[in-house]
């Protein structure tokens, strides 16, 4: 009897053990047949059509070597789960790759063959604070092409698919399109100055948008005063063409007539453009002047306002312009949201926030044969303002704000057959015109050589801001584990990359990348801020007017005084001054009150959100409990 009990017990314990093994094994086997349903609204974890199109282009086997440190000890937990996600996404690639993608997972332990292979592939080990080095990177190879992603940074998670798709696209595309960049700003960085180098200073790195474009395109620097755009250039990017010569404009014109595509970043006021050697040190902090392609724009029927920037209350935020300075509302710093971004266009459809500091606007009707698409625009809560005032005092702009009710275009695309802006041939050489040394002059292109019209449809994109390209406004560069990691602050970089990619013909990557900038802010709070700001603005203005009035009266009293008394205050003046001081104190108090009110609405929203969420439902449950208890007792009594 007893023996049987022991047997049963043993059998049960063994049974539990066997069951555990079976369950673990079952999980292990089933993981090979995984299925996933992506419930996210934007299908963030499903390969985008762009990626699928790239995978469809595969005509030979692509090998992906994934280097992951697999020791449970070395790898931090967050990297381990992140590595799992990289693997998951890679297996999505594999499933969609119709057998053309082969994935090899390698564990680069110290002094192993895998470590040597990682080094050869350009995948780098990341030093942890503990001194250990871990790997999470991959290399893609196809025929003799090889591209590496040295390290997957978790901060770039939303760009994971794009990074992999780009790597694959790069190995299967043998030729990179040539993109010319003509810029008056130091977008290519500045080479190291030998003097500075001795002092331990380094040259400037190229701007991130250039270095990002360089990995997909053959970027060629085009001189601002060249007479011809090189033939191999398919797309020309012009950045801040400040005081551009007619000759250069002619070169661009002819480039377009030849079928070359153009993206021009113009600006009414560039924050980045600072005088290099200002005669007056004060000038060093002044924003630079405007830029335009006046001749060309005129020929296309477009005007660009170089004297005014646009302010928009819906896009404004509070910013500190100086380090440690009090934040002030900057209506001309356009923190654009989806309201003004064209959702129907492939370039902008997936972008929902951009930062355009001090942008100019386009107007006019395009010439016959050209159609215009507005890519970016302001809301109707906007107004054209003076650039300098806007840059020095956002508050002034905010106070005097009067919405014009117009949505101003900030970026437009012109499509169609372009006609030349130089029907009379190339412009005369202005500098050499007065020169008598005619003999030295090169033989000019004859008017007959001038192309008058594009043969087929062409595309030009005009953007009213250059600052959006600047690193400080577009990306955050972080030093993570000793590596320079670029994290987009907003959609600026995407916007530029999408534009360039679409214009060079390969649009597959557009849909992949755009996921990066999707966030879901509290719209209610933003709306509240906007409307509250508007409501309090008039009050602010009223207070300001009162102040100005007092000041005026004081001045009047001053002017009535006799010459000798000028510097001594009369009793009336003293009284007025006292009154003024009193009123000033009052006004300051009122102003403070106004600001306080602005905060109060948001605070109260926050408060009630908390109260309702934490307290309301428990209260209902308690009430329900008490009610049910009461009825139970009643019933018990009745019995």
């Amino acid at each position, binding site marked *: 009897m007893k023996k049987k*009990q022991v047997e*049963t*017990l043993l059998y*049960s314990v063994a*049974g*539990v053990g066997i*069951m*555990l093994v079976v*369950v*673990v094994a*079952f*999980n292990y086997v*089933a*993981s090979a*047949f*995984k*299925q*996933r*349903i*992506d*419930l*996210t*609204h*934007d299908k*963030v*974890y499903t390969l985008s059509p762009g990626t699928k199109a790239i995978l469809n282009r595969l005509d030979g086997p692509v090998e992906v070597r994934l280097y992951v440190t697999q*020791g*449970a*000890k070395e790898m*931090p*937990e967050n990297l*381990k*789960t992140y590595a*799992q996600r990289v693997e*998951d996404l890679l297996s999505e690639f594999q499933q969609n790759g119709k057998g053309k993608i082969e994935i090899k997972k390698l564990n680069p332990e110290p002094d192993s063959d895998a470590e040597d292979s990682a080094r050869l592939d350009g995948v780098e080990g990341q030093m942890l604070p503990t001194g250990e080095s871990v790997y999470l990177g991959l290399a893609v190879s196809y025929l003799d092409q090889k591209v590496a992603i040295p390290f997957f940074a978790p901060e770039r998670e939303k760009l994971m698919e794009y990074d992999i798709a780009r790597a694959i696209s790069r190995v299967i595309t043998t030729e990179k399109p040539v993109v010319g960049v003509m810029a008056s700003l130091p977008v290519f960085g500045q080479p190291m100055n030998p003097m500075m180098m001795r002092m331990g200073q380094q040259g400037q790195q190229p701007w991130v948008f250039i270095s990002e474009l360089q990995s997909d395109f053959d970027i060629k620097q085009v001189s601002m005063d060249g007479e011809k755009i090189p033939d191999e250039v398919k797309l020309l990017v012009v950045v801040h063409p400040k005081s551009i010569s007619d000759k250069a404009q002619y070169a661009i014109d002819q480039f377009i007539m030849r079928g070359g595509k153009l993206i021009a970043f113009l600006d009414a006021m560039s924050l980045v453009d600072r005088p290099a050697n200002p005669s007056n040190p004060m000038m060093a902090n002044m924003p630079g002047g405007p830029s335009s392609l006046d001749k060309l724009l005129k020929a296309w029927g477009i005007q660009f306002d170089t004297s005014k920037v646009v302010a928009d209350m819906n896009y404004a935020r509070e910013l500190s312009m100086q380090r440690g300075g009090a934040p002030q509302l900057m209506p001309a710093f356009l923190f654009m949201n989806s309201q003004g971004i064209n959702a129907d266009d492939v370039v902008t459809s997936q972008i929902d926030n951009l930062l355009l500091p001090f942008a100019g606007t386009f107007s006019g009707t395009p010439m016959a044969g050209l159609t215009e698409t507005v890519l970016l625009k302001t809301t109707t809560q906007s107004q054209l303002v003076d650039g300098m005032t806007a840059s020095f005092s956002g508050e002034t702009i905010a106070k005097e704000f009067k919405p014009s009710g117009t949505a101003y275009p900030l970026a437009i695309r012109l499509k169609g057959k372009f006609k030349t802006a130089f029907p009379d041939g190339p412009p005369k050489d202005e500098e050499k015109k007065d020169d008598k040394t005619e003999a030295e002059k090169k033989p000019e292109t004859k008017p007959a050589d001038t192309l008058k019209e594009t043969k087929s449809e062409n595309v030009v994109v005009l953007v009213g801001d250059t600052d959006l390209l600047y690193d400080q406004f577009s990306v955050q560069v972080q030093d993570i584990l000793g590596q320079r990691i670029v994290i987009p602050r907003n959609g600026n970089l995407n916007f530029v990359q999408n534009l360039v990619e679409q214009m060079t013909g390969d649009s597959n990557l557009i849909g992949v990348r755009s996921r990066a900038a999707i*966030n*879901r*802010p*509290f*719209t*209610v*709070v933003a709306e509240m801020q906007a409307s509250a700001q508007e409501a309090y603005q008039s009050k602010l203005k009223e207070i300001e007017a009162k102040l100005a009035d007092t000041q005026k009266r004081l001045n009047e009293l001053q002017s009535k005084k006799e010459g000798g008394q000028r510097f001594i205050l009369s009793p009336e003046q003293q009284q007025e001054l006292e009154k003024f001081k009193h009123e000033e104190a009052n006004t300051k108090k009122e102003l403070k009150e106004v600001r306080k009110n602005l905060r109060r609405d948001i605070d109260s929203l*926050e408060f009630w*959100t*908390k109260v*309702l*969420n*934490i*307290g*309301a*439902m*428990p209260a209902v*449950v*308690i009430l*329900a*409990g008490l009610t*049910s*208890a009461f009825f139970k007792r009643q019933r018990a009594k009745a019995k």
Partner: protein
Amino acid sequence: MNACSNIKTIAKRELAGYFASPVAYVFIVIFLLLAGFFTFMLGGFFERREASLISFFMWQPWLSLFLVPAVGMRLWSEERRQGTMELLLTMPVTAWQAIVGKFLASWLFLTLAMVLTFPVIITVNYLGHADNGVIFCGYVGSLLLAGSYLAVSSMTSAMTRNQVISFILSVVICLFLILAGWPPVTDLLVRWAPARLVETVAALSVIPHFEGFQRGVLDSRDLLFFLSIIGFSLFATGVILRNLRSGH
């Protein structure tokens, strides 16, 4: 058919038992208060200014760690203490019908508590454009997580007639399931166990599987993981109960 109706009967009886005393109300109120407090005060829901429930789901494993064993601790130990288990098992129901019935009742009860957090969904949709697919997925994950903890509690509850011991055992096991993949735990194991075993133990961690749901992806592996824990724990409960019966 008969099995189904038996399970249903037991589940009903059990669920009615919860609401017969104030225990159910007290539990739900505490759960809601804590969930709200963690989400809004510690999770920085408002400070994130983002229309997502990250701060809500982030705390679920920890909240469940203490509250679910509190629900599950009495499942069997109470029956054992009061000596009603023999009575229950002499009724025309099999042991596993009773186990599943009781488990489902408690799970349903936890689901009700979870459903009552719906104001947070309304809030987040009012404040911005929330991704409701992700939120739905997060709730599915939370329920599966709670179900797993509950199954573990059912097992520990069957082991002892003392509810407190059952509670503590269950919290420890669930805590292990949270910590399994964490370096301090794996470091401890790596000293004497082969790497394969350490990997296997680390794979038992609920957090990476729960994270999948939080992201908005229903992955068959994550689903299977939680269902495995539930299935295995309930099986173990059955083995323990069987032994108790034959042991007496």
